[in-house]
Structure formats: structure tokens, C-alpha cells
């Protein structure tokens, strides 16, 4: 039996949404299941995100809307999995959709019901910090924007039914059972927050001014209860001194959470910085054990927090918190490293709560027959970080272990590749292509404008005199039809619109209602179904930006609506049909770099049936991984690598180019041409054609100048130690001293190399295993054993490995001491707890050397026209939500080319890059944007100003008969219009928002 080309994704947070979008964009049918009434997960609750301080909603909302509207995605919200049977390729899932008591097809999301609901219920989204009604949406931008009745709070008074003009309230709606046939399942169940009231010593729940970090996040948010003011709960004052207490429910055996939650150091710092940005008088202090800023550009963020914003970091565990009854301030007792007990008073305490496995994991694991790890996360293996214990069921994001947003998004895409590899043969079998009537050619015809004005129940009609606006619209030039509708967005009105288009021969349509951001695609679809080009459409926002914001001035609101109408008509008279150019796609990939990431990517592409060219600069494949012999979990990395390399060579779709380098790249998404030079004695050049490029150039170990490295045979790097441990059968190690951050987190390489702490723990455990007599000392600045690795750190301490912290300004010193005719290595380090130097005689000095980017990154970046960050690693399009994409479409990055990282993360990234690539490679053609820039060659002087401001490298200067002119590559242009606004001679314009249209709008002033 053929496999099924459909997937069920469980969990609608950022992981689930990303996985769904990738799958849907590569022709799988997706059912996105969420137990909550709307998708968005935890990220939708966040105010800003580190390290860029991006507004979470600004960057997430477009993805949510895309998922909500995608033809291949069905959203099944307020639903739970009941049971599953079958196996990979053929699962049969039964779901229960709990009743919303609101008809999903009829609810327009106008919100009148919530406004009129007499019951005050706590608002869960704002973490109970503000109130809402018994009929509600989780947040204003919710997807789907469908209200739900909270039966527990509902009095059953019947008011909402009465005020709902759409007739969407269904008090008698029943729960519903649903069967899905899917080929594969992705688990993206996210996490629960640790319940801080379990740590009774912190007084959460007893003291009003002790809040959890998620509550604080809502306090910070512009859409939170205090609209962005940071106010403490007891009296609404702005807290001057705020204490953040880290690791509440993390790294804590008493709570059964031995792991590190990975994200808290960063998000607490972010919250401190944002609080400070809100109100400069705020003095934040963060109480922590280690600063775990292990991610890309995180250390820079911490440094800015400390030096620019004055965030204070104190290393200690807090012993108690007491409330001062009169002021409700909090007295914190803590013991800093020097051992003196200090008591300090704060106005607000934020408990930085850790990540807990989702409560639902247990039940899900049982129903699905997959294994959990001992904490309750879904179990995965180093080399298969997105596979559960059961074939066909994949996992991504925090469901398998704590991780931050970029890693979560990466894994989501990677899981989508997992599905793609499994179901490649069934791709496209369950998605339908919609057929539209042939487009009517309206060019050259005088505009015949139809205007549809919405009452939106009473949302618009209750404030604006809609009939008078209709009357007014009829007087405007070229308007041949104007009418009003109760709800213009309802499905029956779509039929009316289509009929009127025929009846009146309309060739432009205007809807005056809500926001084009949410509803334009719907109406564009309608006119397309009626044979009009989708761009022959314009909207006037007379609700969100008129009736709702001038509720008490009906006259002014009506006047404004008429003005907006006139503006819309002015533009509509000049709008033209726009074409979305279809570009062919070369269904072949190019992978640059033959290390772990490159090999993984090449194989993942090949498994999905795409040909791949794999370019490696060295004489053999394997890269950095050749020097790693085992992992913390004791996997045999060399055996794995050998098997992978064999697979590469035996796969006829993959063509390997050794001793090769990229010489030149031209073309654009779907159609790249690359020249490769093969250096095998004599140079040979090869021209390759491909649709996408994956950059996997890897990283290198830093060659230390410090600590007599290379001058004394007893000084090694971690990789050299690892080799020695593997090769030597039964060695005695004696005193082994490891120094962390050699070449990392300094002026030359200001970043954290991420993998060294894990490496040091791994190798010290191995040394102890081989030679229990050996003494191992690890000299560190912060131990960054994030996630589950924290357990290994604990294991190492239990095995007797001694960890000693040193300060950056007080680095360990190495001396050679002559005794008995030989020279001993002596390491001295200042110990902050006893405030004294410790001296260790070292038999081996092991340096945890930084991971540095390969030199040729610079040249390659120029050829690809993609950026590097300050450290020389490739810079992705967006640090949070596009971790493996570049701004330039069709080019992706993975592995250590992006930043230093351990094996499983490189594998995830490689698969993620493939997933993103597959959204292009699975298409016959790529549709370019309709709204793009266009050049009038008669006016262009080729001054190149437009090129300077274009962030997408979409403009080139072309030699023509008339000389040089700018040319827009429609495949790359995103339609921002920066070029049009920069051009000195009005030679470049933006379709859909032309200079002419803008001028006409400006001219509508009465």
C-alpha cells in the first residue's frame, strides 16, 4: 500500500507552526492540532526576544496568519488526541474537538460578544493579571480569530447570542470526534512552566510582589495589563529595585529537574534590559550560578546588559525571601562567592521559572507508543535528534529537551525533513490545486469600481452612518456600484460580491471594513474566483482604525470613513493587474562543505529524490567530526561518520567533489550557476546548475598562542586529548588541568564556542573512567552545560572532577618549575570562594580551544552576496525565526558555518536547511511577488543608489543598447519600495504602491 502524503502536527506553538508551514510548502497535507483554542503557543505571550529585542508578536503574527490561511493546512484547535493506531506511512488518529460553543464558520471575530459579556473572568493569556469575559479570544491577534465560551465561567444568560449579529453562538454545540489518516506525526508539544509555588522558600503566592518570569513578561508587554508600564502588583508603583532569581525549578534535584532549562539566563537578562528601557530608574539584579550565554551573539548581549544598561549579576544561590509587611518590599538573604551573608531589600522579585516537560507528554507517549526520557521529555538520540523511539513519529522543539526559539524553529524544520524522507513517494498526493477561471483582461478599460461597505454587525454600523457612506461612495468618480453588508467577510457575501462583479461588469473592487492585514487575502481570493486579477482590489479600514477608535464621535468617524473611502477610490482608479512571474526551478541542490552538516544535508536531499553536488575543500569528507571520537552518551562518532560517508558514496544522486572550491556563483533562487575548481594535480573547472545552495563550511579548532601550546608536549587541546584517550590503551594521566575559554570570550573571539564545556566534561569523565586515580581540574569562567548536559556536569563532579571558577581579568597562569632535572608544569588560579591562589602541578594541561570560522568564509560570502557576523560566521536572515535561511532566497546555512555547536545541533540544522530548500525544490515553478519594483530604463542613470538600499541584492546594473541601467530581479525583490523612495530621477517605482497612486491619495484632501 502506498504511503499517505499527510501529516499530523501536534502542538501549535512556534515549532508546530514552522513544521506545518515547511511541510505544507513542500506539498504535504497538514493537520495542525492544538489543545488550546488558538495557535501561537508560548511565544505569542512574549514581549521581546533576545538577543535582538525583536517584538515577538511582530515577527510571529505573519507566520500564524500564513498557517491559518495555507491551503494545505487544516487547523484543528481546541482538540486533543484520543488514540492512534497504525505505523509509519499509515497512521489512523482519532481526535476529540471540544466544543467552543461558537460556530467556527460563522464567527467573524468582531468581539462584540466579549464586550457585552457580564461575567468577569480571569484572563489566562495575561497570566491572570487582567480580566476578560466568559467569551473570549486568548489574545487580540489570535489565529484562528474565533471566540470561545468558557463554560465554567459562563452564566448562560444568553446576552452574547443576542448581540451576535452573525448568529455564531451555539450553546448546544457538542464535542466532536474526528478521524485522520496520516502518513506521519510530529510532536511539538512544547513545555509547561515550572510552578514557582513549589519552591516555598521564595514565597510565590504568599507575597504579592513575588512574580514569575512569565508574569513579568506580560507586565513588560505593550499589550500586557499595564500597556508596557512595569508596575508591581501590590500597589501599582514602579519597582525601583528588581531582583531576578535564576534556576527556579532548574538544576535542582529537589524538584526532579536536574537539567538546565537553557533559556532562563538569557530571557531574564532580556527582561532586565527591557525593564530598564521602560524606566531608566529601575535597578535590576540577577542572582545566578553561571551565566549561560552559550548561543550565537549571546555573550555580546550579556555584556551590553552589564555595561550599557547597568544590569547587576550576582553569583550565588538565594537562601530566603521575606516580606516587609508595611511596604510589601522583599528582603533577600544571599551568600555571594566571598561567603559573607548579605541581606538586601527589593521592591519586586521575579522568579525565573524553568522549563518543565509538558504535562500532556505522558499521556501522549502512551497513546503513541513512544518513549520518554527520565524527566518526561520525548526521548531522542544524538544522531537522530528529531526521531522518537517509534518510526514515523518525529519530535521537535522543547518537547524533546529545553531549547530556545531558534533551535526550536530549526528542529521544527528538521522534523519536516524527517517526514519528507519518509513520505517522499507520497508527496503531493493529498494536496489539491485550486482551479480559477481565466483572468479577464481589464487593461485599457475605464475603471468600473464596486464598493462594498461593511457594518460588521454593530462594530462599524453602530458608530458610522454606513448608509450615508454608501451614498457618498456612489458620488465618487468611476464608482458604478456601492452597497452595504452586515458582514462583508461572511461566505454568503462572497457570493454577492462575485455576482455583482458580473452584474455590473466591475473591474476594481473596494471593501470598506476591517484591516487588510487580516482580510485582504480573503477578498482577493473572492475576486480571483470571479475572474479578476487579485491586485484589482483595495481596502478602506473603517473599523480598526476608525469606528473602534472614535466610538464616541459618530459624526467625525463618519466624516473620516468618507475620507478613507475617497482615498481608496483615488487609488483604485489607478490600480492595474499585476503578474506573479513564474520562474522555473532546477531541481538539484548544491552543498558547500563535506563535514557532518554537509553530509547530512546531502543525504537528506538525496533521500527525497533530489540530485546533489557536494563540494569539499579537503581530500576526504568528514570535517571537524573526524577529530571527535565519542559523545557524552558514549556514541561511537567515527563509526557513524564512516557509515554516513559510505552512504554518500553509494548514493547515485550525490556527486562528491573533493579538493574543490567554489570559484564563482551567479543566478538567483531556483536558477543558480556555480563554477567549481577541482584541484587534483591540475586545475579543472566545472559549471554546476542548481536551484538551491546550502552553506556548510564548518568550523576549525583555534590554534592557541597561550599556555605554551605547541612549545611543550604536555600542553594539548581538547581534541588532541580526545585522540590520545582513544588511541592509548591504558594510560595513567596523573594531574590533568583543563582551562576553558582559551581563545573564546576574549577580545579576539568575543563569542562563546558553545561546545567546549560539554567537551571538557566529556573528556574529564573519560579520563576518570580510564584512570580513576587521575585528578582532573577544570578551570572555567561559567560552566555552560545547558539542557540535559547539566546532568553530565553533575556526574563529573560526583566522579571527583574539581571545577574551579576564574575571572576573566584573573586568568590561570602557567609556570615551568625546575625540579630534579625536569621541568614541571605548574598552574596557578585565583579561587574566588577562598580568595586565594590555588597551585596545581599539571601532568597534562588541556586547553579548551575556541572554534573559529574558516578563513574562506569571507570570499564565499561575497560570492553568494550573503553577510557574515562580526565573528566571521555566516549571518542568518533572522536570529529567531529564520535560523537557517539567508535574506537572499534559495541560499541556506547550517552547522558550524552558522556558529559553533555540538553534533546533534549540527544535524538538526542540516536537516532544517534541507527542509527550507525543499519548499523550493518541490515546486515546478516559483511564483515571484506581484508587488515588486520596476525600472523605467529611459530615466535610469545607473547611479546605483537603489542597489545600496536594497537589502535583498535584487537590483543589478545591466548593460543595454542605451547604456547602463538598473534591473530588478523579480525573483529576489520583496517589494519594500526602499529603492523607489531613494531614486533621484523617479526611474524606479513600486507596483501596487506607485508614486502616482500615492500622489492621488495625497490629493484627496478636502
Amino acid at each position: 500500500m502506498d504511503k499517505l502524503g499527510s501529516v499530523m502536527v501536534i502542538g501549535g506553538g512556534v515549532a508546530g507552526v514552522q513544521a506545518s508551514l515547511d511541510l505544507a510548502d513542500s506539498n504535504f497535507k497538514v493537520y495542525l492540532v492544538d489543545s488550546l483554542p488558538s495557535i501561537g503557543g508560548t511565544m505569542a505571550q512574549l514581549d521581546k526576544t533576545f538577543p535582538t529585542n525583536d517584538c515577538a508578536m511582530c515577527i510571529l503574527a505573519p507566520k500564524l496568519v500564513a498557517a491559518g490561511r495555507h491551503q494545505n493546512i487544516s487547523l484543528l484547535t481546541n482538540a486533543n488526541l484520543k488514540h492512534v493506531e497504525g505505523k509509519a506511512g499509515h497512521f489512523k488518529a482519532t481526535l476529540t474537538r471540544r466544543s467552543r460553543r461558537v460556530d467556527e464558520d460563522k464567527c467573524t471575530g468582531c468581539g462584540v460578544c466579549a464586550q457585552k459579556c457580564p461575567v468577569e473572568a480571569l484572563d489566562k493569556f495575561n497570566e491572570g493579571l487582567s480580566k476578560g469575559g466568559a467569551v473570549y479570544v486568548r489574545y487580540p491577534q489570535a489565529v484562528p480569530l474565533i471566540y470561545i465560551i468558557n463554560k465554567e465561567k459562563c452564566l448562560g444568560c444568553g446576552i452574547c447570542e443576542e448581540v451576535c449579529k452573525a448568529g455564531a453562538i451555539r450553546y448546544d454545540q457538542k464535542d466532536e470526534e474526528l478521524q485522520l489518516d496520516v502518513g506521519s506525526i510530529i510532536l511539538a508539544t512544547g513545555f509547561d512552566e515550572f510552578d514557582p509555588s513549589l519552591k516555598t522558600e521564595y514565597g510565590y503566592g504568599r507575597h504579592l510582589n513575588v512574580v514569575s518570569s512569565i508574569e513579568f513578561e506580560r507586565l513588560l508587554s505593550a499589550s500586557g495589563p499595564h500597556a508596557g508600564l512595569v508596575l508591581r502588583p501590590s500597589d501599582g508603583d514602579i519597582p525601583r529595585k528588581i531582583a531576578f532569581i535564576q534556576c527556579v525549578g532548574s538544576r535542582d534535584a529537589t524538584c526532579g529537574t536536574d537539567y538546565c532549562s537553557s533559556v532562563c539566563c538569557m530571557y531574564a537578562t532580556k527582561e532586565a534590559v527591557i525593564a530598564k528601557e521602560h524606566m531608566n530608574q529601575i535597578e535590576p539584579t540577577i542572582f545566578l550560578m553561571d551565566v549561560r550565554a552559550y548561543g550565537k551573539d549571546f555573550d555580546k548581549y550579556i555584556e551590553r546588559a552589564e555595561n550599557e544598561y547597568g544590569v547587576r549579576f550576582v553569583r550565588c544561590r538565594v537562601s530566603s525571601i521575606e516580606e516587609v509587611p508595611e511596604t510589601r518590599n522583599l528582603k533577600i538573604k544571599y551568600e555571594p562567592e566571598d561567603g559573607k551573608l548579605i541581606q538586601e531589600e527589593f521592591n519586586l522579585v521575579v522568579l525565573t521559572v524553568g522549563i518543565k516537560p509538558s504535562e500532556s507528554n505522558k499521556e501522549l507517549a502512551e497513546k503513541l507508543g513512544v518513549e520518554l526520557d527520565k524527566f518526561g521529555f520525548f526521548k531522542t538520540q544524538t544522531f537522530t535528534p528529531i526521531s522518537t523511539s517509534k518510526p514515523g513519529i518525529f519530535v521537535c522543539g522543547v518537547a524533546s529537551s529545553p531549547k530556545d526559539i531558534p533551535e526550536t524553529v530549526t528542529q521544527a524544520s528538521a522534523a519536516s525533513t524527517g517526514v519528507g524522507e519518509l513520505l517522499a513517494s507520497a508527496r503531493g498526493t493529498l494536496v489539491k490545486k485550486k482551479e480559477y477561471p481565466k483572468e479577464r483582461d481589464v487593461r485599457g478599460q475605464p475603471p468600473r469600481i464596486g464598493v462594498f461597505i461593511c457594518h460588521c454587525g454593530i462594530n462599524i454600523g453602530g458608530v458610522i452612518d454606513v448608509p450615508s457612506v454608501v451614498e457618498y461612495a456612489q458620488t465618487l468618480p468611476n464608482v458604478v456600484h456601492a452597497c452595504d453588508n452586515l458582514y462583508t467577510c461572511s461566505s454568503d457575501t462572497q457570493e454577492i460580491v462575485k455576482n455583482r462583479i458580473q452584474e455590473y461588469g466591475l473591474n476594481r473592487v473596494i471593501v470598506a471594513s476591517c484591516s487588510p492585514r487580516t482580510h485582504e487575502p480573503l477578498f482577493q481570493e473572492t475576486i480571483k474566483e470571479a475572474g479578476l486579477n487579485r491586485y484589482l482590489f483595495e481596502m478602506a479600514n473603517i473599523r480598526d482604525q476608525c469606528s473602534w477608535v472614535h466610538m464616541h464621535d459618530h459624526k467625525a468617524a463618519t466624516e473620516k470613513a468618507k475620507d478613507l473611502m475617497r482615498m481608496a477610490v483615488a487609488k483604485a482608479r489607478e490600480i492595474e493587474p499585476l503578474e506573479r512571474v513564474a520562474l522555473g526551478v532546477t531541481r538539484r541542490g548544491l552543498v558547500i562543505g563535506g563535514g557532518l552538516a554537509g553530509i547530512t544535508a546531502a543525504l537528506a536531499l538525496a533521500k527525497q529524490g533530489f540530485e546533489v553536488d557536494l563540494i569539499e575543500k579537503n581530500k576526504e569528507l568528514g570535517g571537524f567530526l573526524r577529530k571527535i571520537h565519542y559523545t557524552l552518551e558514549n556514541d561511537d562518532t567515527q563509526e557513524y561518520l564512516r557509515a554516513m560517508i559510505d552512504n554518500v558514496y553509494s548514493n547515485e544522486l550525490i556527486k562528491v567533489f573533493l579538493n574543490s572550491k567554489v570559484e564563482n556563483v551567479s543566478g538567483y533562487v531556483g536558477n543558480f550557476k556555480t563554477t567549481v575548481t577541482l584541484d587534483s594535480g591540475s586545475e579543472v573547472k566545472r559549471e554546476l546548475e542548481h536551484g538551491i545552495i546550502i552553506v556548510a563550511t564548518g568550523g576549525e579548532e583555534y590554534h592557541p598562542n597561550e599556555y605554551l601550546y605547541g612549545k611543550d608536549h604536555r600542553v594539548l587541546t581538547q581534541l588532541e586529548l580526545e585522540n590520545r584517550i582513544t588511541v592509548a590503551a591504558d594510560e595513567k594521566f596523573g594531574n590533568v588541568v583543563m582551562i576553558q575559554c582559551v581563545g573564546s570570550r576574549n577580545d579576539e573571539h568575543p563569542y562563546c564556542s558553545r561546545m567546549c564545556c560539554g567537551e571538557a566534561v566529556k573528556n574529564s569523565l573519560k579520563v576518570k573512567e580510564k584512570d580513576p586515580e587521575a585528578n582532573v581540574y577544570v578551570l572555567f569562567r561559567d560552566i555552560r552545560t545547558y539542557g540535559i548536559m547539566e546532568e553530565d556536569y553533575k556526574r563529573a563532579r560526583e566522579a571527583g572532577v574539581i571545577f574551579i571558577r576564574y575571572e576573566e581579568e584573573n586568568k590561570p597562569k602557567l609556570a615551568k618549575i625546575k625540579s630534579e632535572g625536569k621541568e614541571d608544569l605548574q598552574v596557578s588560579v585565583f579561587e574566588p570562594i577562598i580568595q586565594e591562589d590555588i597551585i596545581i602541578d599539571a601532568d597534562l594541561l588541556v586547553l579548551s580551544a575556541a572554534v573559529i570560522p574558516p578563513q574562506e568564509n569571507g570570499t564565499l560570502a561575497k560570492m553568494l552576496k550573503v553577510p557574515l557576523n562580526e565573528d566571521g560566521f555566516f549571518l542568518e536572515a533572522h536570529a529567531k525565526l529564520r535560523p537557517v535561511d539567508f535574506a537572499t532566497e534559495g541560499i541556506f546555512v547550517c552547522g558550524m558555518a552558522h556558529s559553533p555547536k555540538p553534533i546533534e545541533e549540527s544535524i538538526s540544522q542540516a536537516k532544517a536547511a534541507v527542509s527550507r530548500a525543499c519548499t523550493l525544490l518541490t515546486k515546478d515553478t516559483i511564483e515571484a511577488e506581484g508587488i515588486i519594483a520596476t525600472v523605467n530604463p529611459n530615466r535610469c542613470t545607473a547611479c546605483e543608489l537603489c542597489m545600496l538600499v536594497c537589502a535583498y541584492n535584487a537590483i543589478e546594473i545591466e548593460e543595454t543598447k542605451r547604456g547602463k541601467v538598473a534591473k530588478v530581479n523579480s525573483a529576489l525583490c520583496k517589494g519594500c519600495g526602499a529603492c523607489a523612495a531613494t531614486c533621484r530621477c523617479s526611474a524606479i517605482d513600486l507596483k501596487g504602491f506607485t508614486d502616482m497612486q500615492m500622489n492621488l491619495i495625497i490629493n484627496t484632501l478636502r
Partner: protein
Amino acid sequence: MKFNPKILGFLCNWCSYAGADLAGISRIQYPPNLRIIRVMCTGRIDPVLPLEALANGADGVIIMGCHPGDCHYMTGNYEAERKIKMLKKLIAPLGLAERLHVEWVSASEGARFAEVVENFTNQIKVLGPSPLRQEKLDLSKWEGIQAAKEAVEDFRLRALVARERKIIEEGNVYGEEISQEEFDRKMDDALTAEYIRNRIYLILEKEPTSIKQLSKRLNLSSKHVLDHVVLLRRRGLVTVDKIEDMTPIYSVLKR
């Protein structure tokens, strides 16, 4: 000077007004403090009207209608009873509950009418002049009654009261029985919340104020006041005027 109460009566046309006429026809004597407003039915009495009367300094307000079951318009008196019950709850914290009274007097009860008037007049005499009289106006109570007026104007509460009888007698939209107690609890919650918010609004309308000051004036915890201010901000009625030291001072936006 002897206290001479001013009492306003809302009397239904078919029973109580006729009863008052009968008292006259029968020459039954009663105190001259009552001024009567004739309405067709007690059901017509908008809850805001008795409050308006009190706000204008009436020492007492009495509502008289047909006995249960006798209403000329079937159920108007039941509606009135519920509204008055709600009003009494609302003004109780202001110490005004006893100044509002409801009685059933039929067309044949001339003597009873006189007795009711006499009793209520005496009751008011004992209570003394209304704190809302112009001469010595108690400002905080005046604010209170204004807030109460705004609260009963609230659509949601009016809608809820309008449904009370149906819900209690016939069950809610889910066909579940709702006890009077449960309904009252929800109603009280909504009412108190609305009342407090209006008081906050009125205070802020006069002068920008901090949460702590509001909490003192309303004798409510700061936390409580803050919750209400959050809601008022969300409704676009209140905004942060300025921040003094570390304390936000709130002011109103025009309704």
C-alpha cells in the same frame, strides 16, 4: 428646626395610584411629605430614576406597585422588584439602602396606602436628612451615588437584570438550573466591580490620582484598585497622566 423629610414616590397607575386616590376619597389622613410621580407600571421605573432622585437630595424614595400576580402588564412588578433589590445592594455601602423602599398597594387598599406612607415617613425621620442634600453635601457619598448611576447605566448589568427572572425560572441557555444565590453572587460581583470602576473614574475625573491615594479614598486594597484601573485603561477610559517619582498618576480620557 424640625426635620421635614422630602419623599418621592413612584406609583403605578392601576393599583397604587388608585389606592392613593382611594385614601383621598376616604379622607384618610397621612403625612404631607410624599410627592407622587405616576407611572403606568413599576416595571417602567428605570433603575437610574430612583438614584437620580436620591442624588438630587430626596430623603427617601418609595416605589409602589400592584401585588404580585396583579400586575396590569403581567410581570412589570416582578421586574421592578428585582431592579430595586439590585439598587439597594448597590447603595448599601453608602448607607442609603434604607432610604429606598418598595411596597405593593392595591387599588382597594386606601388605608394601607396611608399606613405605608406614614411608616416610611417615620423611618426617614429617624434616619434624618439625606447626606446628599444640597445644604450639607457629603462629597464622597455624592460621588458614590454618581458612580452607582453610571453602574446601572451599564449595558451588561441592565441586560443581566433583564434576564434574571427568565434564568431563575426557566434555567439558563444550557437548560441548567441557576439558583437565586448563584445568580446573585455573579450579579453582585459584576455590580460591585462596575460601581468601583465608576467611582475610580469620577475621582480621576476631578484630579489625577495615584493607586495608593485611590485605595485610601475607596478603602480598598491597592491590588484591587490596580485591577480595576487596568480594566479602565483597557477600555480606553483612563490613562497614565504622569509618573511622579516611581508612582504613576492616572487621569481620565473623555468618555
